[in-house]
């Protein structure tokens, strides 16, 4: 890739801020909690607009077929049907990564996965819309389907996309250092293959969209379940051929995302197109099978690893070959491909790296971004390889991981820079808390313990389209009617960023978190934000909020100073009071020099009117030196380590995870209660993928388990005891010292469980999920060979 731009990392000249906080670090139940426990809060499907009608999408029963004709004349005749659209209404392709865009709201000419939308209907009610779908006649020419990427890459005769030979969606090679030489000179080289499975987010709220096109003004208002309203905004403008300023997107509230709502849903486009066609608001709510058909979950990976070590157990090189199953369309594919590449560089120092990866099209629902994307797959392999190497060197996994762990200030060969890391502290803490060293290798047959580490980016350095604009903007408005109002387009998908943003604003403004009103998730009202992905919000919005709040303080401090009759640079603000840092406490119980925050605002308002200040954040661009090398670069990184303890039922092969001990470095936790929730949720998702979650596709591409009945995910009964710990940390490059905690903690869960199973029965499994069948067969084979 040619050199496109270099920008200085201005924000990295961070000043040393105080680490004494009043609002940051507080366990604050989320501000929207009461509305959630009472059912008062509204998600997209809860909204009803005047004259609103309902839309439904007709989905293909075939995984690979040419569409010869679509006849919807009978459907249109049905009483109550208002309009029908097909691929002809949306010929412009879209995609979250613009230069790889190949998706359509409805199939154009061909379907490439089971469940792909081919037509959509708007009708007076859902029952009528469903009846209308039955009346649409689609003539298909069924084609052979390919569902295995290892086969698809060999089949140039059967192209899923005509312009992609051998069904290769994208491929890339990265070489850092001299891995071949390093491997040849290594004291010990380990080589192994791994497979990570096809899983999905399984958020509980299905996607919904309500589009309201006003024919009189030509404006479109879309209410959507969307983690990335800005990108959806862009893509709607493209597909509907409308200027962005005629489109407004409001995200009411999201019932879980995990990356699954990190793309525009086809419901967004279909409802918009239908609404424009019929001139009434149209609501489309997905059934659970629609959610599965539009998957966007984790990429299955066929991974080949070669890992070299010197005589002391230090990593010399990693050679990683990754064949990724991308499903039918591009989605987040390129990004995920190169994230798997970048994830090899940390949390261990790897001096020589070779990555050779391909993302392959298959006739399956498209894969995309799912919590910890690109990291979960290689982490699963590398952590276990390290364990095997440890055995060779007569060390414990703990020792080899600590030996190779990166520290603050580390720069990887790919130029990924780690400003701060307490990864070693995480390893120490879990080992101590779980008594790992007393247990490893010493538990009776059938019981085992495993240790793994992980990390994740905390923000991304690049937009998905080339742009220099800030990645997030926050505006704080102060007046004496509403107090503090914070505008920021960051999207809370359940992780609690609304509360965390209020906490950060309150910290600098010196008011209470509960008194900050957050206006989020509306492209017309709130300020610009790229979206919820890459664990970027706390970090990015934090800097923007801090900057905005400091500007507010710069306006209010002189007013407070004149009221207190002291100099402006002697003023501080905390707990709702401006005060003189030298004379706060008066003698004999009298008040010192302090004045209530609201009084200062009142005085300011009298002479200046309302006060509003904006802050913004642009991350540093530490450009990588190779193809795709800019992916994986992040302002900073979060780290975590986990110990899993398992009990294998030797008669059934069922694995019971008894306990998981976790320690995370998220810098300064802004809201420890929310961090704990993120960790628990990560562990649950990892546990599901480790043991039983799997979307099953028949050889002809039919989806075999598109329901929450057949797609098994952990229930309350499956969760082990969890001991989640936050290690003491403060990242000086981060706003208020706080960084990622949403995706890092899923990385260690799977390898920790697999390693614990190895400790329990002496078998190293390399394929997910670890079903009872696989375990029981292994136990039987073990007995037979004895």
């Amino acid at each position, binding site marked *: 890739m040619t050199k496109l731009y270099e920008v200085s990392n201005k924000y990295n000249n961070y000043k040393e801020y105080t680490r004494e906080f009043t609002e940051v670090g507080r*366990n604050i*139940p*989320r501000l*929207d*909690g*009461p509305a*959630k*426990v*009472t*059912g*008062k*809060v*509204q*998600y997209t*499907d*809860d909204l*009803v607009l005047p004259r609103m009608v309902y839309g439904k999408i007709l989905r293909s029963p075939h995984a690979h077929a040419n569409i010869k004709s679509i006849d919807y004349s009978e459907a249109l005749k049905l009483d109550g049907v208002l309009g029908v659209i097909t691929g002809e209404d949306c010929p412009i392709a879209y995609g979250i990564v613009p230069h790889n865009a190949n998706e359509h709201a409805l199939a154009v000419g061909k379907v490439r996965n089971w469940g792909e939308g081919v037509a959509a209907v708007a009708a007076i009610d859902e029952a009528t819309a469903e009846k209308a779908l039955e009346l649409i006649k689609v003539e298909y020419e069924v084609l052979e389907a390919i569902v295995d990427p290892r086969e698809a890459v060999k089949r140039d005769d059967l192209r899923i996309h005509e312009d992609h030979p051998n069904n290769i969606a994208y491929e890339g090679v990265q070489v850092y250092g001299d891995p071949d030489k390093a491997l040849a000179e290594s004291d010990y080289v380990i080589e192994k293959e791994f497979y990570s499975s096809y899983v999905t*987010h*399984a*958020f*509980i*709220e*299905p996607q919904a969209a309500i589009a309201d096109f006003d024919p009189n003004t030509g404006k479109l208002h879309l209410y959507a379940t969307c983690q990335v309203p800005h990108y959806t905004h862009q893509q709607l403008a493209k597909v509907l051929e409308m200027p962005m300023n005629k489109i407004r997107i409001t995200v009411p*509230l*999201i*019932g*879980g*995302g*995990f990356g699954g709502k990190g793309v525009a849903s086809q419901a967004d486009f279909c409802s918009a197109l239908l609404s424009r066609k019929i001139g009434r608001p149209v609501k489309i709510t997905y*059934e*659970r099978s629609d959610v599965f058909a539009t998957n966007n979950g984790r990429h299955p990976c066929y991974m080949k690893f070669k890992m070299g070590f010197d005589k002391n157990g230090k990593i010399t090189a990693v050679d990683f070959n990754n064949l990724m199953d991308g499903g039918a369309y591009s989605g987040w594919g390129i990004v995920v491909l190169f994230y798997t590449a970048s994830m090899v560089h940390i949390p261990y120092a790897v001096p020589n790296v070779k990555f050779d990866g391909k993302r392959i099209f298959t006739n399956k629902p498209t894969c995309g971004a799912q919590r910890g994307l690109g990291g979960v797959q290689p982490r699963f392999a590398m952590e276990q390889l390290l364990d095997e190497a440890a055995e060779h060197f007569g060390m414990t996994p703990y020792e080899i991981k600590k030996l190779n762990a990166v520290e603050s200030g580390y720069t990887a060969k790919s130029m990924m820079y780690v400003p701060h890391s307490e990864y070693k502290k995480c390893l120490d803490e879990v080992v101590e808390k779980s008594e790992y060293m007393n247990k490893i290798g010493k538990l009776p047959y059938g019981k085992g313990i495993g240790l793994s580490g992980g990390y994740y980016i905390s923000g991304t350095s690049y937009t998905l389209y080339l742009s220099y604009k800030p990645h997030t903007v926050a505006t704080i408005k102060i007046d004496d009617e509403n107090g503090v109002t914070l505008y920021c387009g960051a999207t809370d*998908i*359940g*992780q*609690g960023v609304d509360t965390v943003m209020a906490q950060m604003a309150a910290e600098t403004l010196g008011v209470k978190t509960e008194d900050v009103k957050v206006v989020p998730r509306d492209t017309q009202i709130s300020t610009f934000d790229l979206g919820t992905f890459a664990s970027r919000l706390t970090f990015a919005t934090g800097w923007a909020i801090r900057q905005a709040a400091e500007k507010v303080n710069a306006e209010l401090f002189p007013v407070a100073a004149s009221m207190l009759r002291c100099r402006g640079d002697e003023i501080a603000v905390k707990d709702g009071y401006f005060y003189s840092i030298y004379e706060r406490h008066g003698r004999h119980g009298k008040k010192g020099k302090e004045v209530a925050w609201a009084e200062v605002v009142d005085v300011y308002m009298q002479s200046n009117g309302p006060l509003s200040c904006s802050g913004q954040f642009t991350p540093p661009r530490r450009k990588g030196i190779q193809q795709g090398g800019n992916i994986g670069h992040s302002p900073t990184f979060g780290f975590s380590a986990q110990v899993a303890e398992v009990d294998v039922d030797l008669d059934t092969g069922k694995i019971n995870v008894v306990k998981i001990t976790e320690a995370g470095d998220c810098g300064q936790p802004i809201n420890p*209660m*929310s961090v*704990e*929730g993120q*960790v*628990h*949720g*990560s*562990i*649950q*998702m990892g546990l599901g993928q480790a043991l039983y979650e799997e979307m099953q596709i028949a050889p002809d591409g039919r989806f075999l388990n598109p*329901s*929450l*009945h057949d797609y098994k*995910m*952990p*229930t*309350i*009964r499956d*969760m082990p005891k*969890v001991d989640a710990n936050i290690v003491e940390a403060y990242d000086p490059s981060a706003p208020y010292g706080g960084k990622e905690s949403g995706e890092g903690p899923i990385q260690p869960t799977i390898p920790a469980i697999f390693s614990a199973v190895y400790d329990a029965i002496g078998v190293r499994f390399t394929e997910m999920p670890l079903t009872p069948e696989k375990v029981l067969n292994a136990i039987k084979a073990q007995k037979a060979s004895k």
Partner: protein
Amino acid sequence: MKKKIVKLDINNHVYEVLVSATDLLVDVIRKQIGLTGTKKGCGQGDCGACTVLVDGEAQLSCLMLAIACEGKKITTIEGIANQETGELHPLQQAFLDHGAVQCGFCTPGMVLSSKALVDNNPTPTEEEIKHALEGNLCRCTGYVLILEAVESYVDSLAKGEV
């Protein structure tokens, strides 16, 4: 399809609604009555988000016909807090205090399943709580804090604090 007027007692208020024989309780509660606190996550009885109390028992409203609920007492999440003062039910408060709420989509179902359990068995064991909640899927919280919330409510009941 032929429709019929039925009387549904929801949160101590009797609503007259016009329903067909196939209308599901969840849809009638959400769309006709407008109580959208009851959520629909799967429509197939797998996720528990649509849980309501019918005569005090936790039931999946996506698997019940509205027409079959005439004469029964239905409670939705909107009927749990004190109807006059708006004060949260202590179980709701426990969910908040323990961080058992993230995206909130499963929360109404979780609260109602827990309430049905504790109303019938004020001193449930951990195993009994898990049994009562195993039909309610949550993808955000990892369940640990939900279990803690219910346990804390059970504790404060035993101590007579609530």
